């Protein structure tokens, strides 16, 4: 018994914060999952776009993971980390995806304000910032059948959970559910932004590939933080 309590309190102290190493783990997991989903994302994109969304996301996240090799989690902060990720992504990915995710990652970094870690309950606000950054670059609104149709409801879910003081585990589970439903909901939407917009009503019935990849990133965030901190 004498041994247990210091260990528990030590763990608890560790559990209360989301740090650079946690976010690095999230990014590595997202990279691995996007690589596994590459063909599927390409198929989704092939239905309403040009079929390259899978390879594009994989290339961008591979560049992020390469850049992480240079990061010492003990001496970095979240703002520096996200800025590094944004630069790596932007330098390796063109299309709309490059500027959109680079803007999102920069916004997440700005949210962290140079901190080395965030209180666990606050950490999902990084997803809100990511979505805000993407939204202000791309100008897509709800229902345009884009990645924002996942980032917006996920952001709202995070804010609602934070308003009622939900514990991290509950917020992460909720975020995953919302992301999944939101992705599926893009199926019934008519594309009005990006290349798929040229299809108009012919885009109905297809899941938006950008929404699908957003959900993969959000799921990685939820699962890895739940695993490391839950």
């Amino acid at each position, binding site marked *: 018994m004498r041994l247990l309590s210091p260990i528990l309190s030590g763990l608890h102290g560790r559990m209360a914060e989301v740090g650079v190493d946690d976010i690095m783990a999230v990014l590595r997991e997202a990279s691995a999952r996007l690589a596994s989903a590459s063909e599927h994302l390409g198929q989704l994109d092939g239905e309403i776009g040009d079929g390259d969304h899978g390879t594009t996301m994989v290339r961008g996240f591979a560049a992020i993971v390469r850049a992480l090799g240079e990061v010492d989690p003990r001496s970095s902060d979240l703002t520096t980390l996200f800025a590094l990720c944004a630069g790596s992504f932007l330098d390796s990915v063109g299309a*709309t995806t490059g500027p959109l995710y680079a803007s999102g990652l920069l916004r997440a970094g700005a949210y962290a304000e140079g901190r080395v870690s965030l209180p666990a309950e606050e950490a999902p606000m990084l997803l809100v910032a990511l979505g805000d950054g993407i939204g202000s670059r791309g100008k897509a609104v709800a229902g345009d059948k884009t990645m924002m149709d996942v980032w917006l409801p996920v952001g709202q879910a995070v804010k609602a959970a934070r308003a009622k003081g939900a514990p991290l585990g509950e917020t992460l589970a909720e975020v995953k559910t919302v992301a999944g439903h939101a992705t599926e909901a893009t199926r019934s939407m008519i594309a009005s932004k990006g290349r798929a917009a*040229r299809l108009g009503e012919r885009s109905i019935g297809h899941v938006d590939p950008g929404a699908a990849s957003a959900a993969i990133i959000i799921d990685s965030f939820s699962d890895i933080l739940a695993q490391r901190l839950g």
Partner: protein
Amino acid sequence: MQRFINNPDDIVDETVRGFVKAHDDLVRLDPDNARVVVSRQAGTEGRVGIVTGGGSGHEPAFIGYTGRNMVDAVAVGELFSSPTAKSFHDAIKAADGGAGVAVLYGNYAGDNMNVKMASKMAKKDKIPVATVVANDDVCSAPPEERAKRRGVAGEIFMWKIGGAKASEGATLEEVQAAAQKAIDACRSVGVGLGPCTLPAVGHPNFEIEPGKMEVGIGHHGEPGTRVEALKTADEIADEMTQIVLDDHDLPEGTELAVLVSGLGATPVDELYVLYDRMESQMAARGLKVYRAFVGNYFTSLEMVGATLTVMALDEELKGLLDVDAEAPGFNWRG
């Protein structure tokens, strides 16, 4: 279709390397960025630089228009995918000769965002940047929403006119105005008879049933405005001519520059078959072809099909069109 491929992921780099080797007299690779092709003439002191860029798979566009009195530097993207903001930025730096840089590109969401970010980066380098966005593809949006239209083969005329204007020592504003005037005078339409396949994807990114054609198809297989039964070449030529001219409202006697481009897998003889009829149709409307360009000028991998671009000319555009230009994809002695 059987293809010449090593690894699908290497196609763009290998294309650019081969291109630069083949046209070493006119172009070079940016030493710091293997996705930027630079004209040997780029950076001439006091001359406005011309930059463009876009996804690969449209060869000879975009790299083929790098050269003397055309484009100074081209940002090269993945297949059918906008180049990175970094590549546009590096192209702007390579093209700069102290008089500013005009970025003349096509209206696609990715290119718009990446050029915007690159322009911001260039401003930090104190390089003045002006942009012109091509939107000549008639079927991609109605006339009242012209700003939403895609840029297609009209971009070639935009580069030609912009490059010629720059070669005369014009200011950045004058080059921008000339290029804008050129694209405003352009109308284009595409007809697709067969799809194309991104090698890394491995299957066609859309379908055209046998015996059908897609009118208004985009440069990446964006769906057209209608799918119709395949007609004779003359009937298709009539339809294409009508689409571009009906959008244009040109007075009789107007002189035209006309460009008929294959989309990659259509034999060049068929392009001349189309042009034969198109020219007659234009003449019947009292329009005169001043210069015609027929061939594979702006392709979409191995798509079967053709595009028609018509630029209405005035004396200024005629003069600029006739300025010598020398690029791997476009040679012109006025």
